[in-house]
């Protein structure tokens, strides 16, 4: 082994900190998580199979019996459904972020990161950015499958793109909920289930799979204000997927779904990012 003094030349650079190095820290961590994604492709693959299954099941199993709006055609439901499944898929990124961070805690990697002079939010931001890339890949595959089973858009490219951006923003905001869960629970397994259970009521008491107009009044109000519903409604509008004869509810978020979706996502993002970074700084142990 060579002598230690030789190593003494590698010192911590005197200047650091500031926005530039914080961004770099985030990217270094994001790259690490993306490398992991490539080396453990099964996570990505299973993450894609699930929504594809939803598309197929809902289209062919429920599709024949569910009517939306005034239309009796099954293709109307098919088109109505896709925005709901897209939105559900992006929110499932929550479980991935949570499990990943819980695993890093468990293995002691978070301790390693916390002992380094890096930007405080970088570990979590890097992770959520990597999850965003994964979500985007999943959406591309999912949109392809949706096209195969007959989903079509009836607007222009700009609107469609905006719809997908809203979906990604929602997914990114939700991954911060996952980050907080990951820092709070003790095992990756708990983070996975803890990241999923509340998503079921959230995604089902919404307009994602059915016309919320037909729900009992109490549930209908929840569904109309559900952040999840606003993004779904926005996407339906932007994709031109609202069925003929569909009556848009009077609730404010349903009337202004694009704006409401952006606002909801930003509120969730800021709130949970603040909570998660605070928890990270404070130390989980």
């Amino acid at each position: 082994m060579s002598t230690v003094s030789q190593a003494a030349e590698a010192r911590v650079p005197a200047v650091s900190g500031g926005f530039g190095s914080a961004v770099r820290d985030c990217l270094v961590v994001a790259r690490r998580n993306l490398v992991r994604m490539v080396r453990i492709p099964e996570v990505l693959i299973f993450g894609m199979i699930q929504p594809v299954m939803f598309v197929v099941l809902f289209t062919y199993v429920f599709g024949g019996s569910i009517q939306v709006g005034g239309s009796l055609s099954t293709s109307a439901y098919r088109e109505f459904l896709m925005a709901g499944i897209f939105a559900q898929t992006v929110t499932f990124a929550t479980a991935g972020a949570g499990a990943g961070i819980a695993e890093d805690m468990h293995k002691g990697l978070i301790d390693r990161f916390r002992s380094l002079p890096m930007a405080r939010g970088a570990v979590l931001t890097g992770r959520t950015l990597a999850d965003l890339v994964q979500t985007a890949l999943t959406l591309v595959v999912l949109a392809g499958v949706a096209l195969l089973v007959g989903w079509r858009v009836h607007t222009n490219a700009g609107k469609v793109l905006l719809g997908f951006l809203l979906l990604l923003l929602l997914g990114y905001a939700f991954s911060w909920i996952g980050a907080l869960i990951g820092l709070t629970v003790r095992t990756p397994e708990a983070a996975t289930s803890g990241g999923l259970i509340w998503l079921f009521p959230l995604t089902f008491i919404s307009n994602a799979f059915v016309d919320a107009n037909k729900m009992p009044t109490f549930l209908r109000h929840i569904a109309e204000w559900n952040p999840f519903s606003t993004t779904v409604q926005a996407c339906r509008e932007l994709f031109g997927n609202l069925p003929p004869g569909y009556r848009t509810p009077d609730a404010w978020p349903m009337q202004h779904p694009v704006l409401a979706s952006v606002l909801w996502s930003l509120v969730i993002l800021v709130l949970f990012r603040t909570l998660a970074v605070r928890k990270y700084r404070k130390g989980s142990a």
Partner: protein
Amino acid sequence: MPGAIHAEGLVKTFGDVRALDGVDLDVPEGTVLGLLGPNGAGKTTAVRCLTTLLRPDSGHATVAGIDVVKHPNQVRRSIGLSGQFAAVDEYLTGRENLQMVGELYQMKAKAAKARAAELLERFHLADAGDRTAKTYSGGMRRRLDLAAALVVSPPVMFMDEPTTGLDPRNRQELWDVIQELVAGGTTLLLTTQYLEEADHLAHDICVVDHGRVIARGTADELKARTGGERVEVVVHDRAHLASGAEILAAFGKGGQVTTEQHTRRLTVPVTGGAKLLAEVIRELDARGIEIDDIGLRRPTLDDVFLSLTGHRAEEEKKDEAGPEAEDSPKDTKETSK
């Protein structure tokens, strides 16, 4: 002048457990302090407080002259931490792990790459550098973890149970690395459950139990406290135990001879060293007592621990299955909620 690591009255509680109950430490620059104690004694909590991972409830600590509570990020620039659990990313290669740590220390990508290559070489990991850490043996992982802590050659190092779970060969190898590091001027605080390890590596030792420092000094000073050397004799024939004890009593300081029937072992505290040992042998021989083994035994740190706490360091580990509670990261979390 306070040392490179200095702590006064550190207290940290988790719920009802006082993991640290007023710990004072001082490690002069360029020396090694061994924090010795059983699982759950508070060693890891102390390291976590000093490395800014945990905020002490009260007390004051500086590392490299910097206050750990007031300026944690500056402290982080001056320290390296190598943990109980090898904190490397299994799905990255050894090289990628080191490079990532370098970049997070704000090194330029190129410099981080060069440094990673240098460290892989130095820790005998060059051949395995491009394999994922998942494929590494326990010893290799530990070396990689240590290398990650040394990326910027920090002046102060913390090692939390660096050799726990390693086989003797890997342990010796890691000891060599640590000694080389200290020879280069690094200040080191090391926690261990192995008395032999503290004896081997540390200049000063603090014995910790239940969150308090119950004794401190050099290994020799601590050993001297337990009463110096003893002569140990194993007689060949059990029938000779009584007469052997009689002879030893004459040589012993206080005359107190311990007899262990089943091992046929006689022990007596003595002063006089090797010269006395020769006399004991002559006397036993003259009386026709055949012996299987004889030796001058200096107290081990295990004896020290026993005499200080009333229990052996290793035993407590088995007795209290829970006490990891306070030392392992995942469980500390539970108590802090």
